[in-house]
């Protein structure tokens, strides 16, 4: 019969030794693990868009692709639409015109849960190559009026990829600087003069200043909402566009809705019940933006 004290001491010594050994192993492998992870991510990005450098915008989700002279050549983003057996990890590259430069669906070894031999065929070039050169508007399966041929007997997986890519472009495409086109909120203007970099523009036609366009960011329900507002000299909102938002599907998503955004043209709308947080955030963002930049329209 061993004494309690001896048991405690033995257990203690073993536990401490194990902990010390593990901390050494951790210190030894940790940099290597980080490096392999980064390498894996990077090689995934290179497959969809060629660039000199990938600047992280949202960790593990969105990168800006930059060439060797520092020019933006596009963006890369990752989306995880729900497939047949689980989320499908997809990496998408977009050029500055919002055209797909390539998509890559992660293999089973990288976490794809789709049925081997059926749904898992969405990883094959025969399927993914079809997306090249498309814009968000073109991305649809043949069954839905598009031109993407679905994998036979794997319509659910194919559709998930198509809709995931489409949603991704709508969500992140606005991060392409040239496509943050102020025309979408101020159609009457001929050109825009940047007043504050990436934030405020003067809308100009001929020699007249018609109004302003500004970009703002507010905290939404799930993520920041980035929006663009056009405002003319008559103090009327000419348009509101969402550049980035990631609100709850079917609820907060309403803020991307054309119908809701159009309401801003006839004054500040009411918050939408059920999506109060998202809509209020946007409304407050627009109002405070107007307040901040009102001197430019006087």
């Amino acid at each position, binding site marked *: 019969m061993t004494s309690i004290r001896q048991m405690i001491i033995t257990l203690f010594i073993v536990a401490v030794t194990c902990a010390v*050994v593990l901390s050494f192993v951790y210190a030894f*492998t940790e940099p290597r693990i980080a490096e392999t992870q980064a390498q894996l991510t990077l090689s995934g990005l290179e497959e969809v868009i060629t660039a000199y450098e990938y600047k992280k915008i949202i960790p593990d989700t969105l990168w800006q692709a930059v060439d060797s002279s520092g020019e933006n050549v596009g963006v890369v983003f990752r989306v995880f639409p729900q497939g047949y057996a689980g989320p499908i990890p997809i990496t998408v590259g977009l050029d500055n015109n919002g055209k797909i430069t390539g998509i890559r669906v992660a293999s089973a070894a990288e976490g794809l849960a789709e049925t*081997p031999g059926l749904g898992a065929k969405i990883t094959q070039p025969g399927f993914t190559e079809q997306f090249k050169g498309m814009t968000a508007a073109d991305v649809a399966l043949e069954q839905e009026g598009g031109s993407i041929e679905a994998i036979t007997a794997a319509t659910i997986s194919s559709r998930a990829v198509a809709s995931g890519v489409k949603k991704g472009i709508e969500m992140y495409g606005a991060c392409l600087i040239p496509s943050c086109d102020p025309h979408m909120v101020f159609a009457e203007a001929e050109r825009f003069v940047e007043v504050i970099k990436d934030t405020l523009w003067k809308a100009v036609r001929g020699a007249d200043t018609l109004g302003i366009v500004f970009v703002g960011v507010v905290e939404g329900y799930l993520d920041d909402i980035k929006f663009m507002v056009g405002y003319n000299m008559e103090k009327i909102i000419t348009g509101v566009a969402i550049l980035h938002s990631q609100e709850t599907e079917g609820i907060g998503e309403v803020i991307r809705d054309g119908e809701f955004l159009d309401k801003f043209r006839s004054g500040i709308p009411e918050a939408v019940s059920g999506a109060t947080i998202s809509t209020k955030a946007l409304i407050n963002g627009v109002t405070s933006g107007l307040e901040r930049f009102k001197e430019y329209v006087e």
Partner: protein
Amino acid sequence: MSRLSIFTRGLIKDNAVFVLMIGLCPALATSSTVRDGFGMGLAATFVVVCSNLLISILRKNIPNEVRIPIFILIISTFVTIIDYMMQAFQPELYRALGVFVPLIVVNCMILGRAEAFASKRSVLDSVLDGLGTGLGFTLALTIMGTIREILGNGTFLGMTVFGEAFKNSPVIFMIMSPGAFLVIGILKALINKYVKKEL
């Protein structure tokens, strides 16, 4: 018992998967390809050899009442080591094996060898026993992985066998979970019929 028979016991006569039917969960789940099965087998071999070695060295100093927690501590330390190593040097294999790497801790084959053998026998015998048991497990997983990958994916270690036509429409079912049960069932039946057990 001779040194050789200590080694071959776990390898063939008391093969963990095919004869004792233990460690079946990882055997079924990670044997969909040769690489995964072999990788999983080697990871388990590393753990069982190292834990047998250490437990055998410490066997006279481990109080009987707390031996199980100590065995588990030692086993989980080695599992964590292999877990980190695999993440660092074999990231693709690590992703494929997923949760089954940390779950080696609860593989009863390993705790079983610690309790039944290493805690009572000399260091060399314990290492041989661990090596035999681990390689027996690796052998079983590799055999299952070979059958399942060839039939279910038309490849062996990623290389095409039986030509492209078969590769494009293989027996997909074999690399899915039901295929694992089918293969282990048939192998077990064959072993029971043709391999005489020395009882």
